[in-house]
C-alpha cells in the first residue's frame, strides 16, 4: 500500500451495483468527513468481478461537502477498489477487506452493502464511533423492518443465537457491521474461507465469533433498511442452506461457549430510536403453504431421521388445514423442530445439504403461519411475537442440551 495507513477502513463489497454504489460511497464519504474529520480513513471496495461500471463509480463519485455543511478534512478519504479472490460471495469480499484493514493498521472498520438506498452519513458514525470512542469490538446493526421482513432472522437466527449465547443481538445477520482492528485480525486468522462463510454465512459467522470469542459487543440503531430489490437469481434454498448451515456449524464449534449459558441479557444499544417508515412488501403466502404441504406429502421418511413421530404427525395435522384460516404452526413445535435439527447436525444423521434442504418446507410452513397470524398486527405486535418465540427457545434450551 506504499506506506498508506488508516485509522478507519470502510468496506463495501459489491457485484454489479453501479446503480446504487455511488449513493453509498457519497454517504460513507460524508459520514467520515462529518464525524471523523481528524482520522485517516480509506474506503475499500471489494468487487466480485462486476460486469458493469461498479469500480469506476466508486473511484469517480464526487461528494459536495458544502451541501452537507462539512468543513475541510485534515486528511483526504482515499478510495481503493480491488477484486477479491476465492469462492465468489460476500464472505470472500469481506476477507479482502479484513486483510486490507490489517495492512493499513486500522483501529476501527465497518462494512456496508453496496445496494443500500437508505444509508445516511450517520450510519458511519453509529458503526464506527462505538469502536473508536467506546472501545467496543463489534457493532451489530439494529433496524426498523417491515413485520414480514427478515423471517430467517426472526424465526431461527436471532432466537437461537440469543438462547445459546445469552446475548440479545436483534440483527445478527444484518449485513452492516462495525468492528475493531483486533477483531478483524481474529477473523482473518480463522480457516473458514472454503466454507459457506465465504458466501451468505459470513454475517452469522462474524456475529457468533465476536460473541463466543469474548469480544465486547453492542448494537447501533440505524433506522430503516431499504435496499435494491433482491437479486431475482438468488436462490432461497442456497441462501437458507448457507446461513442456517453456518449457524449449525458454529453451534457445533462453540459448544463450550454456550453449554453453560442460561437466560439472556440486552447488549448496549447506541443511536436514537425513532419511528421509521418501512416500505410495504408483497408476500405470496399461498406459495409458502403449498411448499409446506408438498414437503409433508413427500418428506416424512427423511424427517423421521431427524424429528420424532409425534412431530411428523403434528406436521400432517397442520398440512390438512392448508388453505383454511385454521392453518397454524405452533411456536413450541417449531422450536423443538429447530433444536432437533441442530442435534441431527451434531450427530450427523444426514448429509448437511440434505438435512438443511429438508428443513426448508418446514420453515415455509412456520413463516406462512406467522404471516397469517401477523396480518392484523402492528409492527410492535409482530415484534412481540418474535420475542415470545425467542423466549420459547430459551425455555427449551435444556431439551437441546439433553439431546446433544
Amino acid at each position, binding site marked *: 500500500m506504499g506506506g498508506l495507513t488508516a485509522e478507519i477502513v470502510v468496506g463495501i463489497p459489491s457485484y454489479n451495483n453501479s446503480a446504487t454504489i455511488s449513493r453509498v460511497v457519497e454517504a460513507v464519504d460524508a459520514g467520515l468527513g462529518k464525524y471523523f474529520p481528524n482520522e485517516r480513513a480509506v474506503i475499500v471496495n471489494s468487487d466480485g468481478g462486476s460486469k458493469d461500471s461498479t469500480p469506476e463509480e466508486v473511484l469517480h463519485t464526487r461528494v459536495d461537502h458544502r451541501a452537507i455543511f462539512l468543513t475541510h478534512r485534515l486528511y483526504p478519504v482515499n478510495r481503493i477498489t480491488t477484486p477479491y479472490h476465492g469462492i465468489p460471495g460476500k464472505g470472500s469480499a469481506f476477507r479482502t477487506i479484513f486483510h486490507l484493514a490489517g495492512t493499513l493498521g486500522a483501529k476501527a472498520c465497518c462494512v456496508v452493502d453496496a445496494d443500500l438506498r437508505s444509508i445516511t452519513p450517520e450510519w458511519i458514525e453509529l458503526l464506527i464511533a462505538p469502536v473508536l470512542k467506546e472501545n467496543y469490538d463489534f457493532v451489530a446493526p439494529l433496524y426498523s423492518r*417491515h413485520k*414480514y*421482513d*427478515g*423471517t*430467517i*432472522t426472526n424465526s431461527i437466527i436471532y432466537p437461537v443465537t440469543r438462547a445459546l449465547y445469552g446475548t440479545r443481538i436483534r440483527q445478527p*445477520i444484518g*449485513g452492516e457491521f462495525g468492528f475493531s482492528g483486533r477483531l478483524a485480525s481474529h477473523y482473518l486468522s480463522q480457516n473458514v474461507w472454503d466454507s459457506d462463510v465465504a458466501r*451468505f454465512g459470513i*454475517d452469522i459467522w462474524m456475529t457468533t465469533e465476536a460473541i463466543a470469542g469474548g469480544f465486547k459487543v453492542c448494537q447501533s440503531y440505524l433506522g430503516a433498511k431499504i*435496499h435494491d*430489490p*433482491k437479486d*431475482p437469481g438468488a436462490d*432461497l*434454498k442456497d*441462501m*437458507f442452506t448457507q*446461513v442456517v448451515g453456518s449457524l449449525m456449524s458454529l453451534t457445533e464449534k462453540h459448544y463450550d461457549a454456550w453449554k453453560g449459558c442460561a437466560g439472556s441479557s440486552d447488549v448496549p444499544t447506541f443511536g436514537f430510536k425513532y419511528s421509521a417508515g418501512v416500505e410495504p*412488501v*408483497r*408476500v*405470496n403466502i399461498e*406459495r409458502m403453504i*403449498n*411448499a409446506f404441504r*408438498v*414437503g409433508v*406429502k*413427500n*418428506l416424512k421418511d*427423511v424427517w423421521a*431421521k431427524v424429528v420424532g413421530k409425534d412431530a411428523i404427525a403434528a406436521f400432517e395435522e397442520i398440512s390438512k388445514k392448508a388453505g383454511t384460516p385454521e392453518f397454524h404452526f405452533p411456536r413450541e413445535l417449531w422450536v423443538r423442530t429447530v433444536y432437533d435439527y441442530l442435534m441431527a447436525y451434531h450427530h450427523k*444423521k444426514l*448429509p448437511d*445439504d*440434505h438435512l438443511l*434442504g*429438508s428443513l*426448508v*418446507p418446514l420453515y415455509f410452513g412456520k*413463516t406462512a403461519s406467522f404471516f397469517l397470524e401477523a396480518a392484523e398486527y402492528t409492527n410492535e405486535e409482530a415484534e412481540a411475537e418474535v420475542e415470545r418465540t425467542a423466549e420459547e427457545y430459551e425455555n427449551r434450551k435444556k431439551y437441546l442440551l439433553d439431546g446433544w
Partner: protein
Amino acid sequence: MERLKNEFIAHLNEFMDKAADFIPDFIVMVVILAAGLFVAWAVRLAMTRVFAAIKFDDWADETGISSALHNAGIRKPPSAFMILSVYWLIVVMFFMAGFASLGLKVTDTLASLFFMYLPRFFSAVLIVIFGYLFAGFVSRAALLTAVNAGIEYSKLVAAAVRIFIIILVFAMALEQLSIAPRIVFAAFSIFFGGISLGLAIAFGYGGREIAKKLLEYIVKKETEKDDINML
C-alpha cells in the same frame, strides 16, 4: 500264470507309488481345509465383535441397506449376512487352494479359474455396495430438490432416479462378472430406450395437461416472487 502274477504286482506297485505320491498331497489338502475353517472362524469372530462395536446394523438401517436386503428376501440382520458371506468365501477359497495342492489337472484348472475370477467377483460386489449407497444419496438429493421446487409427486421422481441408478449398477456388475455382456448391454439399451420413449409419449400425449400445468406453475412462480428479504 507267472505273467499274470507279475502284471498284478506291477500294477499294485504302480498303485502304491501313486498312493505314496497322493497321500502327502491329500494330507496337505486336509491341513489347508482345516486352516481355512480356522481362519474363517477367527474372521467371523473378529467381524462379529467389530460390527457390534461400530453398530453396523444401525448404520445399515439408516442407509437403507437393511431394507434392501429384506426386499431381496434376506431375513438375517445385515451384519450376520455379511459375516456369513465372508465366512463361506474364505472356506471356499481355502477349499480351492486345498484342491489345487492335489496337483490333478482338473482341480488345477478349476482352482486357477476360480482365483482368476475372484478379482472380478470382488469388483462386482464393491460396485453393487457403493452403487446402492450412491443411489440412496442421489435419490434423496433428487427428492429434496423436487420438493423444494414444489413438485407434487417428488417421491416418484426420487424413485425413478433410484431405479435408474440401481439398474445401471447391476448392469455394470454383470458386465464386470462377464455374464453375457452383450445381452446385458442390449437389454439395458432396450430397457432405457423404452422408458425414454414411454415417458416422451406419456408426457407429450397422455400428460399434456400436467405438462401445461407444470409450465404454468414455473412461469407463475417467476412472476409471483415475494418482495420480502428473508435474511
